[in-house]
């Protein structure tokens, strides 16, 4: 259906930053004062050509509540890393203070060591349900290996979340375009 994917927020990195927020109202990075709210049932995050300033850096994420990242130890997730250099492997986290490995693996500073992917966000605005996020990603990791990934994350708190924070485990996110869409009802 034409016009069913509505751009809500977007931020392109021009100067390296450690932390960005998509949505989150006035705490959001773009200045658009966008929030995840009841306008749409499902939201989608797209990131393209995300790279880091330090080698072997992870991009992690957290939900935001009224623009503030929730740092409580309630982040679960599981995914399968599909690797070109060896067999697949399974990864999981429980009760961490962030969604670790949100972008699948660490990237580096080498040529083309970049990450792109899509996350669908469910129930973020529903105060009675946990927040869910799917993972679908492709990357060249810090060892210059091509990889894919598929899985999901759950934030096991029934609360309304208005955005998502992405941050580098060390150093800065040096490049990338990060976009939040709403799926039209």
């Amino acid at each position, binding site marked *: 259906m034409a016009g069913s994917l509505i751009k809500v927020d977007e931020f392109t*990195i021009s100067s390296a930053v450690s*932390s960005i927020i998509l949505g989150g109202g006035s705490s959001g990075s773009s200045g658009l004062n966008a929030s995840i709210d009841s306008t749409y049932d499902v939201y989608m995050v797209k990131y393209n050509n995300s790279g880091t300033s330090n080698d072997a850096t*992870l991009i992690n994420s957290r939900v935001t509540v009224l623009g503030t990242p929730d740092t409580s130890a309630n982040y679960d997730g599981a995914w399968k890393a599909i690797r070109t250099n060896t067999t697949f492997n399974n990864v999981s986290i429980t009760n961490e203070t962030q969604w670790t490995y949100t972008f699948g693996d660490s990237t580096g500073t080498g040529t083309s060591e970049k990450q792109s992917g899509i996350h669908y966000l469910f129930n973020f605005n529903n105060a009675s349900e946990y927040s869910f996020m799917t993972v679908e990603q492709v990357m060249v990791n810090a060892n210059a290996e091509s990889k894919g990934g598929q899985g999901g994350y759950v934030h096991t708190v029934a609360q309304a979340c208005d955005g998502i924070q992405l941050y580098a485990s060390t150093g800065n996110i040096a490049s990338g375009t990060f976009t939040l869409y709403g799926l039209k009802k």
Partner: protein
Amino acid sequence: MATLEELTAAAQTEIDAKKTANGGDGMFAQVNNERREFTEAEYDQAVIDKANSDFDLQENGYKQARQEAYLPISEQLDMIYWDGVNGTTLWDDHIAEVKANNPKPE
């Protein structure tokens, strides 16, 4: 093996050195279309995050390293087949080498 407390202290030193007030390049957040340096609370959180990340790497990093070092299953099956035919220990040697090169923390 460093404790989480020791890694937290190391992360504190490293993050402190990043602050522009201490001559570092700074850590920055992009908020409302403005790039600004981390607040003290954000720097404190960065210390916690880095310590936890380093601790996890120390405790579980060998698992990822082994996953990456093991040859694909098809090649391992081939090794097992030829070990049976020739009486060699290619597969045992491969597994032992990967484990020895990526030891589990004591």
